[in-house]
């Protein structure tokens, strides 16, 4: 019985530690969210290019675009718990939020276009959003 009590104690401690581990620095959290958005946009652009070159199937492209739109939307939601304790963090958070939001909008549009018409006319919006994300990402990495 004592063994089980100890095991339960260790598990509880681990759960608490896991909870504490979530409180990393705000800048790190912003960088993670931006990285995920960059990855989602770059994956979507690559998937669209491969489909246009007839190297990939509609189902695979459709799935990539759906998965990546969800990933970027999750990255945007992940900004919500970040608390702002300085003007600098607030400014960084707002810049990251704007860039990620532009990425989410472009990804959703691409996904919907592809679902409805079987093609994404132009990847310019995705590329522009990707550039915006990269700019903020580089700025935050430089300030770290």
């Amino acid at each position, binding site marked *: 019985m004592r063994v089980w009590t100890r095991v339960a104690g260790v598990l509880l401690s*681990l759960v608490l*530690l*896991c909870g*504490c*581990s*979530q409180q*990393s620095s705000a800048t790190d959290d912003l960088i*993670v969210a931006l*990285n*995920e958005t*960059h*990855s989602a946009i*770059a*994956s979507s652009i*690559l*998937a669209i290019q*491969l489909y246009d070159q*007839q*190297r*990939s*199937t*509609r*189902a*695979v492209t*459709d*799935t*990539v675009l759906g*998965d*990546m739109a969800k*990933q970027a939307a999750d990255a945007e939601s992940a900004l919500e718990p970040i608390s702002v304790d300085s003007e600098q963090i607030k400014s960084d958070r707002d810049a990251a939020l704007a860039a990620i939001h532009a990425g989410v909008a472009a990804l959703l549009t691409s996904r919907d276009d592809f679902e409805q018409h079987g093609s994404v006319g132009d990847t310019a919006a995705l590329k522009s959003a990707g550039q915006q994300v990269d700019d903020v990402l580089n700025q935050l*990495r430089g300030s770290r």
Partner: protein
Amino acid sequence: MKRVFGLALGILTAIGGFVDIGDLVTNAVVGSRFGLSLAWTVAVGVLGICIFAQMSGRVAAVSGRATFELIRERLGPRLAVMNLGASFLINLMTLTAEIGGVALALQLVSSVNYLLWVPFAAIAIWLVIWRVKFKIMENVAGLVGLCLIGFAVGLFLLGPDWGELGRQLLQKASTGTEKTSTYWFYAVALFGAAMTPYEVFFFSSGAVEEGWTTKDLAESRANVLVGFPLGGLLSLAIAGCAAVVLLPELIGVTALSQVMLPVAMAGGKVLLAFIILGVVAATAGAALETTLSAGYTIAQFLGWPWGKFRPPAQAARFHLLMIICLLVGIGTLMTGVDPIQVTEFSVVFSAVALPLTYLPILIVANDPQYMGEHVNGQVLNSVALVYLVIILAAALAAIPLMIITGNGQ
């Protein structure tokens, strides 16, 4: 001739059956973030699984009994229950991940959301376990799983800078923006993916299912020592494709669909079709193995009749248990939990449970009461002990690394 054919078939099945959703996802994630700098972990993991899988296969062939039965008898129920608890929970998590993997692969064919495929995938797995003979089930899944060789073909077609890939092999610790702690987290995850506990329990129970005797020892050794390392090369090819195409674009793999992008770039729709077929077979094969392993471990521990060699009516509790495990897997996935995250957790917790799985096997394989003249030799014991130290280090480091890195972020 028949023996050579059997040997070749066994090796091919071992290659095709080596890769599961854990290997697929973890290798692709690692390739896209660290290139081939963690390839050494795959090599260490493959050697480890070879050592312990052939050991558990030998135990089953010599004693005619599966590893779990002997562990309970040799170590007593109190110690064996720790082994059972750890192995069963990891196995259940892996089973859930594999069902999710089948569903995700079917989404890549159909565009239909993977959640709609989950119940069908689980029912298909149950039907195969219920109706199909063990040997046919194992061979078909393993042979069709060989389509994953397409990753190696794809890597060649991509025409990478081999010198650069070679440099990545020798690269130490972190790369680019990745932290050293994240590097070690993924080293542990890859090690856990290669040494997943269910593989040894399935291997030893399968030996009993197929009625191995000491005459089959050479063949079983060849299956493991040739098949598993070649399967390990497939894992490296998955990481290689991701390293060549995704790493330069800073695309971190978080979804199975992204793993298909390098394949499409390399070989177009034909190679893509091969790979998706391979992924379906590999994940379905692993789902069959984990479902059976769930039944094997509990039934062997509790002394219930088990095995596909018995009609289901004679092993009713064994079959009922597998149905319950499949239902738990379906239920978990239907909550909307991401199957890729389940996979990532399963490989890390696999690493945590490794000592509880592999130490008892080593103890039983050294017991002359069960093994007679076939006990481990000194060299094998020395290597196995070195591995136990590595396993213990990985198990102790897994959860702290998971906490420090925020699960590899």
